[in-house]
């Protein structure tokens, strides 16, 4: 298990390196720089600015400098928000974004899994069709459509919840968390239903039933665990979906998280901010996939043995 973890972790390093490299050179190809203004700056000032941020050096030197910075966990100064470092900006936005994402994930699992399992037990009955059609709506309505609709209904028409802004209090968290969670609930319910149906048809379930085991025991102790494996492998893409979704959700609900920085940073040509966010997201996705793989290997011994043989 430890060997497997180390191997998986080691394979993340080239990926991360590739990510940083591509992101660095991609954004530098961009026409226009971070200090472009409507009025041309005097050449001396421009030269000074460029010197301060090392923009006058050859690209390769800048790249090496950036790598060395990152190795020390320093993402550099912001080019747009003067006197702010990217580390400061991110550590300000991160708690907000993480709370939002984590809550959405928990809500999605807590609702999606039971609903999917329930639909599987009622396969091909009207209640199953009803649940799965609802899930399809959840998948088909993108969150940037869902968010304004929820605001229209709950904030404007009914006046129950605030339309935006952020504070660590339930009333302000409900709408953004629900918006992020809804498509995930739908996906998780569909996946759980599919795998549960497959598991319920397998021979070890028949054996358990033949032994005279109570149905409750069969479902909870034998069926649920293998049925959850596909859900766990969905968590990797789910993490990516949360990150992407947070860009939209934070923008619509005016939440001061990392996602809202990103688009603004890209538009401002704030090189270091965009790089910082892309790297952070890359690391998060890699870490999350890593944890998912570990969890998977722990739950499904076949994976471990396969890895051990090769």
């Amino acid at each position: 298990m430890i060997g497997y973890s180390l191997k998986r972790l080691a394979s993340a390093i080239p990926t991360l390196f590739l990510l940083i490299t591509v992101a660095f050179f991609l954004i530098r190809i961009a026409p226009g720089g971070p200090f472009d203004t409507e009025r041309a700056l005097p050449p001396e000032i421009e030269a000074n600015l460029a010197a301060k941020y090392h923009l006058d050096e050859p690209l390769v030197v800048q790249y090496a400098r950036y790598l060395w910075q990152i190795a020390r966990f320093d993402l550099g100064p912001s080019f747009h928000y003067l006197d702010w470092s990217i580390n400061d900006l991110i550590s300000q936005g991160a708690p907000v974004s993480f709370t939002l994402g984590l809550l959405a994930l928990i809500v999605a699992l807590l609702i999606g899994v039971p609903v999917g399992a329930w639909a599987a037990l009622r396969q091909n009955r009207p209640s199953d069709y009803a649940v799965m059609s609802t899930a399809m709506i959840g998948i088909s309505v993108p969150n940037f459509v869902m968010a304004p609709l929820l605001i229209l209904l709950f904030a404007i028409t009914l006046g129950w919840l605030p339309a935006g802004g952020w504070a660590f209090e339930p009333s302000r968290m409900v709408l953004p968390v629900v918006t992020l969670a809804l498509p995930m609930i739908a996906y998780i319910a569909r996946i759980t239903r599919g795998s549960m149906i497959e598991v319920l048809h397998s021979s070890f379930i028949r054996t358990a039933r033949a032994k005279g085991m109570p149905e409750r025991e069969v479902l909870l102790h034998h069926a649920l665990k293998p049925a959850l494996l596909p859900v766990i492998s969905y968590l990797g893409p789910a993490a990516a979906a949360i990150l992407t979704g947070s860009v939209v959700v934070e923008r619509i609900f005016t939440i001061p998280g990392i996602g809202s920085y990103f688009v603004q940073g890209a538009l401002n040509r704030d090189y270091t901010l965009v790089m910082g966010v892309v790297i952070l997201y890359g690391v998060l996705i890699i870490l999350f996939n890593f944890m998912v793989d570990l969890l998977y290997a722990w739950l499904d011994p076949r994976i471990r043995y396969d890895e051990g043989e090769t």
Partner: protein
Amino acid sequence: MSDLARDAFDQALDRRDIQGRSLYVDAWHRLLKNKAAVAGLVLLILMALLVIFGPMLSSWDHEIPDWDNYSTPPSLETGHIFGTDALGRDLYVRTLIGGRISLLVGIVATFVSLVIGISYGAVAGYFGGRVDNIMMRFVDGIYAMPFMFFVIVLMVIFGRNILLIFVAIGAINWLDMARIVRGQTLSLKTKGFVEAARACGATEWQIIRRHIIPNLLGVVIVYVTLTIPQVILVESFLSFLGLGVQEPLTSWGALVNEGAQELETAPWSLLIPASFLALTLFAFNFLGDGLRDALDPKDRS
């Protein structure tokens, strides 16, 4: 005994005359039995017709404002059946023109990802071994990246032109296609029926034509139907952020963005494009699901 045996024999004889049904005829019949999928297909055909011919039926233009009607709700009296936006432009025409762009992006970008994905996956699967290993490692590597963010950066960098949207979205979507095609090719190569065909003296070309391609095609068709809504979603996501299609052109995502800003005063300008977008995605997903059930031999019960 003899009666029973004769009946069975006669039946067997009768059956010999029945034409064998091809994989696709078979799948088509299965698809027609799936009401949700048929409804999705019909809806998509209607949507396509509406989007192509709908704007011609209206006397309004998608760019020119109606100076007498700003932000008016849907009504027959003004002639704006979907209402107008804050600038007085007719929402019926704008929604349909936006639909043209959204559907076009969906189809073209899917085609781009299809071409890249199939060639990449087929090469990896066909050669196998080390080539396959390296090629798939590369796919795994870029798979782990926050791609949406690269697209955002790309859109910002290279300006927001529609061709780039096609390429950028197509370029991030080929990974899945490559994986699926590669896996399918790998497993098809070793299937018993391929070996049987070879044993019967079929040539390589016959095997590819009769066995590999038809089996690959099913997966590809299913995947295309499921990719188009994903691509439409990505395009509307970008347009929603203001990074996608630019004025005077529009798309469903851009319209939803405009509508969301006038949520309190003109909710119809959000609701109408939003329901067009959601309905289309809904129909594609149902059709894709139905096609998967109809074409995927594994799930056949």
